[in-house]
């Protein structure tokens, strides 16, 4: 199967996952069994109904699952030849870019730091960071992906610049061949890929985020999708990702829909292995591609969490496992006991679940730091509001 037919063949199931949108309660606009077209709105944020979430494939809604406290777990779609027309309404003459992106399901492409999740629909930001650095050694090269799409990328960047009065930061690898569009408030940053591939590292470097000063991040392929949406009125759910396992090298890059079913693409893993979404060891175990992930792989099973806590042995490698230079072991200790105040002082507000996942993969204690970080971030956010 070539790169283009995977997405075009409409044979891949897909899902929108609660893990990508922390604490999201939804207001569904479809029911299980409904046929949907790409770009059709599946549900809205119950608290901020302006934020819409769009279907990535043509198919049928197979399940709408909620987790504890009625948070979104997953909305899954199976491919089907449904005769539903995909929406293609263009931006209205009096409509703002913000309203259009909200209404067409592109707003969740942004991640607001600190705390994660899509930005508040009325929020203002001092900086938007566009990440165009390969997320891993095997991830698709942004220069290759953007070849032939420079108009859509430029259009997307122009639209993003309208969302802020501050700067738009385009982060590139220092070997990147991408030509930055000529925009007045655009700042281009080039650095070595090492310790620069994660949005956490980019934000910490170019526009540090704090509770009173949020920074939004977006991936380069989402910028292209925004450009396509504005040019054609059609929602573009296709992303080029690297899918790899130990047996397939070099890693093939494929065009797949957002939230694609990874077990269809990578095969069912054996009992010793599991499917990982994201540039391992960042990311998480997931049967479906994460909303912001451009890598997926088959990795060995992590050991299950012990019943009684094991000690955190302060291994030297733990300090280098985070994308930014933070005191990793004191932070792990404070997260493990749920000390929100100390965790904030040690820099946990600069991190999201994907950023801290490498610590779980190394630590002797068996603690799930992504989950502990989310608990602490939620507590810090509720203390502030």
């Amino acid at each position, binding site marked *: 199967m070539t790169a283009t037919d995977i997405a075009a063949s409409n044979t891949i199931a897909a899902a929108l996952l609660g893990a990508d949108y922390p604490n999201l309660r939804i207001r569904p606009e479809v029911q299980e069994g409904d046929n949907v077209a790409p770009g059709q709105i599946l549900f809205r944020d119950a608290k901020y109904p302006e934020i819409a979430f769009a279907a990535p494939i043509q198919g049928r809604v197979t399940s709408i699952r909620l987790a504890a406290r009625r948070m979104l777990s997953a909305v899954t779609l199976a491919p089907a030849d449904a005769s539903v027309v995909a929406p293609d309404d263009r931006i209205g003459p009096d409509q703002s870019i913000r309203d259009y992106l909200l209404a067409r399901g592109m707003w969740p492409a942004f991640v607001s730091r600190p705390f994660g999740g899509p930005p508040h629909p009325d929020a203002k930001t001092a900086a938007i960071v566009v990440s165009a650095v390969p997320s891993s050694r095997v991830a698709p090269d942004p220069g290759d992906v953007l070849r032939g799409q420079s108009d859509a990328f430029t259009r997307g960047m122009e639209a993003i610049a309208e969302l802020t009065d501050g700067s738009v930061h385009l982060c590139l690898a220092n070997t990147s061949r991408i030509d930055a569009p000529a925009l007045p408030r655009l700042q281009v940053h080039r650095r070595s890929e090492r310790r620069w591939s994660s949005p956490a590292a980019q934000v910490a470097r170019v526009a540090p985020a704090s509770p009173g000063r949020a920074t939004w991040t977006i991936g380069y392929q989402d910028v292209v999708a925004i450009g396509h949406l504005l040019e054609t009125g059609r929602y573009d759910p296709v992303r080029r990702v690297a899918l790899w396992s130990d047996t397939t090298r070099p890693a093939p890059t494929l065009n797949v829909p957002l939230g694609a079913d990874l077990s269809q693409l990578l095969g069912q893993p054996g009992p010793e292995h599991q499917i990982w979404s994201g540039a391992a060891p960042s990311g998480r175990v997931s049967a479906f591609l994460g909303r912001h992930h451009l890598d997926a792989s088959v990795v060995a099973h992590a050991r299950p969490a012990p019943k009684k806590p*094991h000690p955190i*042995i*302060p*291994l030297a490698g733990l300090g280098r496992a985070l994308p930014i230079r933070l005191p990793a072991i004191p932070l792990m200790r404070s997260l493990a006991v749920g000390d929100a105040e100390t965790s904030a002082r040690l820099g946990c507000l600069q991190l999201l679940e994907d950023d801290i996942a490498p610590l779980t993969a190394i630590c002797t204690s*068996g603690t799930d730091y992504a989950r502990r970080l989310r608990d602490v971030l939620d507590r810090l956010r509720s203390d502030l509001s």
Partner: protein
Amino acid sequence: MKALTHVMQGRGAISLIALQIIAVAPPLAIVLVERGPPAIVQFGAALLIVLVWDYAFAKVRHHRFLPQGLTTAAIFVLLTPPDIPIWHVAVTLSLATVIGELVFGGRGFGFLSPATVALALALLSLPNLELPEPSTRAALACLPGLALLLLTGLCSLSVLLAFATAMGGIHFLAAPTDLAQLALVAVPAFVFLIADPTASAVTLGGRVLYGGAAGALVWVFGGIAMEPATINPMIFAALTASLFAPLFDHVAIALQTRAGRLRHG
């Protein structure tokens, strides 16, 4: 290196104990052969004592039995003479294992190396005790262990470099003692006492301060002349540096926070 680090995921202190045993086995084997039956008897007694305490605490606390005292006994026998009375070995190791490790919840939960505590107690309670200088073979046999601990992250390169710089720097400034002899005692003391990850600082800056302090304290406790070089001051240097390790981390974090605030306004 990545695979070596990841192999410890979720395994708790058992990975630390297993790797430390692999590291200490070659020099211990050489020392047992060199010193003969008295050392073997001493090792057997030391093992029995620490394992009884480990078992007793595991039973009382309903924990899984973990032979964490194995490394304590091995390091103690490696660095002490075989003619210490067995009752003294028993008292010293019992105190060190219980107050240096088990009361905190076991290996990895405390802030001291029980082997360092045991050796310090032995030196304090027997003022005339002279710890034997390791043979060249035994000191060299510590090096594969050092490499293993460095590769697995159980020994920090920052601590090693800071310790070597501080010790070497003072040596070259004052040139007081024979460098080869100093290295013979410094290698086992560093690998098995100072480098212990549960007793050292945990931040980058803290580790540099910890290693540097340990290196400098050797000269404080040994006296600047330190002729001949012995392992005694290294034990007190390791113990004192471990006691201050949380302070070193605190200072390092405070400096990093300050630098961050200054940079980001």
